[in-house]
């Protein structure tokens, strides 16, 4: 038993004593409080950055630079009246927020924040848990978080939240396939599922980062797919306020709404961290040869890289227009899934040897040509006289007529 535990985490190698138990508890509490603190800073950061990008001032009243604005908002939300619509399914309505927030917290547990520390003779990995299933835990949790959004919309017993939850379920399933495929690519190259091993394998310098080692394609696919999983702009059709009022959380108020809000930002931070872990070597980076800085620097590197991605999400939100629903589905099924599958096959070929790699590249190229031709034919059948599908997203008036009219109006 202890040998098996030791293989999971070196902390348990010499049996589970009280000290080991204490370290585990401290590690969990630290991870949780870091995440909660980060959420508060992240909300402030997003509001401040977007204000800057839109030439506004943003929060400024509470605390230095408006830092305590989030706290004030949180207190306000908790003190508000908690409403449950009469048409709501009460049990599921109360359950849904927790189904969103729990996966967000659990996923953060597998992120390696730093290297390995030695505390009182015990070697401690700076991550809350290092399960053998590793990165699969993240996929499983993103699968569970769909339920929170879906059930919140459904249980509200209201029209727009229901539409939102139908959208959410379709969207999150579509992008999960592409997400899984890029993770398979990484796992193939690393030869291990555990996030600790994935980070260690990238620790030998910038050329060993998965971003460069696997070609940039998996990273781009992952970034797009994970943004869609998060329902962040430009993929926020789930809570598109111009179409669906507030989306799945329209009927929520008070503390339950605060939980949804919390979960969204937790997810943003966690996914930035996961991206750093998978593609940017996690805590890898230059380390000075000074006694205590040797374990401080990896944490700093990790923080810097994560903040860069957190900023990217804010940047997306401020600058990209929302995709239409059918465009979103097209991007997921027709572009990202074939692309990630093809790239995975090429990488797998190159892992065997060079000849197989080029053979795979040829096969994928051929498949890509075939697929393009098939899309072209399908597109023609969609539009032409022998169309089989009702055109989606077609305006009642042809585009040229509309353009002519707007040109006339604008003079």
């Amino acid at each position, binding site marked *: 038993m202890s040998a*098996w535990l030791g*293989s*999971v985490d070196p902390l348990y190698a010499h049996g589970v004593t009280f000290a080991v138990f204490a370290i585990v508890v401290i590690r969990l509490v630290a991870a949780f409080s870091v995440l909660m603190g980060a959420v508060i800073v992240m909300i402030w950061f997003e509001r401040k950055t977007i204000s800057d990008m839109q030439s506004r001032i943003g929060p400024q009243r509470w605390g230095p630079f408006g830092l305590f604005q989030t706290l004030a908002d949180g207190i306000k939300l908790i003190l508000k009246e908690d409403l449950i619509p009469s048409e709501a*399914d009460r049990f*599921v309505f109360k359950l849904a927020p927790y189904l969103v927030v729990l996966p967000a917290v659990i996923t953060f547990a597998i992120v390696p924040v730093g290297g390995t520390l030695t505390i009182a003779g015990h070697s401690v990995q700076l991550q809350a848990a290092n*399960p*053998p*299933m590793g990165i*699969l*835990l993240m*996929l*499983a949790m*993103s*699968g*569970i978080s*769909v*339920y929170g959004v*879906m*059930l919140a919309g*459904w249980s509200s017993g209201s029209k727009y939240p*229901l539409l939102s*939850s*139908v959208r959410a*379920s*379709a969207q*999150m*399933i579509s992008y*999960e396939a592409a997400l*899984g495929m890029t993770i398979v690519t990484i796992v193939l190259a690393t030869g*291990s*599922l*555990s996030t600790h*091993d994935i980070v260690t394998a990238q620790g030998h310098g910038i050329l060993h980062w998965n971003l460069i080692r696997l070609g940039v394609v998996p990273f781009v696919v992952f970034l797009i797919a994970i943004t869609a999983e998060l329902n962040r702009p430009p993929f926020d059709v789930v809570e598109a306020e111009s179409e669906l009022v507030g989306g799945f959380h329209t009927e929520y108020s008070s503390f339950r709404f605060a939980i949804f809000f919390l979960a969204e930002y937790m997810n943003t931070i966690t996914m930035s961290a996961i991206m750093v872990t998978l593609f940017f070597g996690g805590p890898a980076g230059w380390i000075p040869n000074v006694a205590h800085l040797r374990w401080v620097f990896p944490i700093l590197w990790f923080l810097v890289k994560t903040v860069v991605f957190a900023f990217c999400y804010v940047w997306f939100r401020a600058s990209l227009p929302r995709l239409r629903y059918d465009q979103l589905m097209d991007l997921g099924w027709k572009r990202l899934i074939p692309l990630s599958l093809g790239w995975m096959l090429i990488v797998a070929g190159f892992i065997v040897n060079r000849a197989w790699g080029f053979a795979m590249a040829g096969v994928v190229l051929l498949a890509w040509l075939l697929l393009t031709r098939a899309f072209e034919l399908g597109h023609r059948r969609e539009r032409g*006289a*022998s*169309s*089989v*599908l*009702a055109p989606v997203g077609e305006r009642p008036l*042809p585009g040229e007529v509309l353009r002519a009219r707007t040109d006339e109006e604008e003079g």
Partner: protein
Amino acid sequence: MIAGAYALPSIVVFATSALLVLVGAVGVIAAQNPVHSALSLIMTLFGVAVAFVAQSADFLAAVQIIVYAGAIVVLFLFVIMFLGVDRRDPVRVEPLVGQRAFAAVGVLITVAGLITLMARSHWVSGAISVSSGGTALATGQGNVKQLGTAVFTTYLFAFEATAALLIIAVVGAVLLARRERVVENEGSDA
């Protein structure tokens, strides 16, 4: 023998997973609302995943959650919401006459089969895990390697046959769902 072979923690884990599986399974058939049934199904799947982890089959546990809870039940819910079957239709009228009698017979046969299996095979005779019946299951990372080797060498034919079956089902569904649309006004179709 049996009582001596199990440590307290594994009994607790087993009881928890069994409880999750059973309560969920009863919930699936007892719930009035189809969405509640689907939720109970997720609970059952979680119970099975816990049982997998207890048998140190971590990969299977993760896949159980990702595929069944994360995709298949989501699709169930999608269809339930899309078709609006959750508006509580009273299912007092039996769509198939005499199905209750057949169901009772089916339950009897299944339970009898299970009991016969349990009485004859080795896994109630005190083996700690299923894996100790055959080749030892590797722990941690070796787990995945072992499974991959088994699927792509020993059981390759069964694996590929399943894949083909799934593809046939998908293509069939697409073919059935596709309707040739009659174009009414070809003149205005610009």
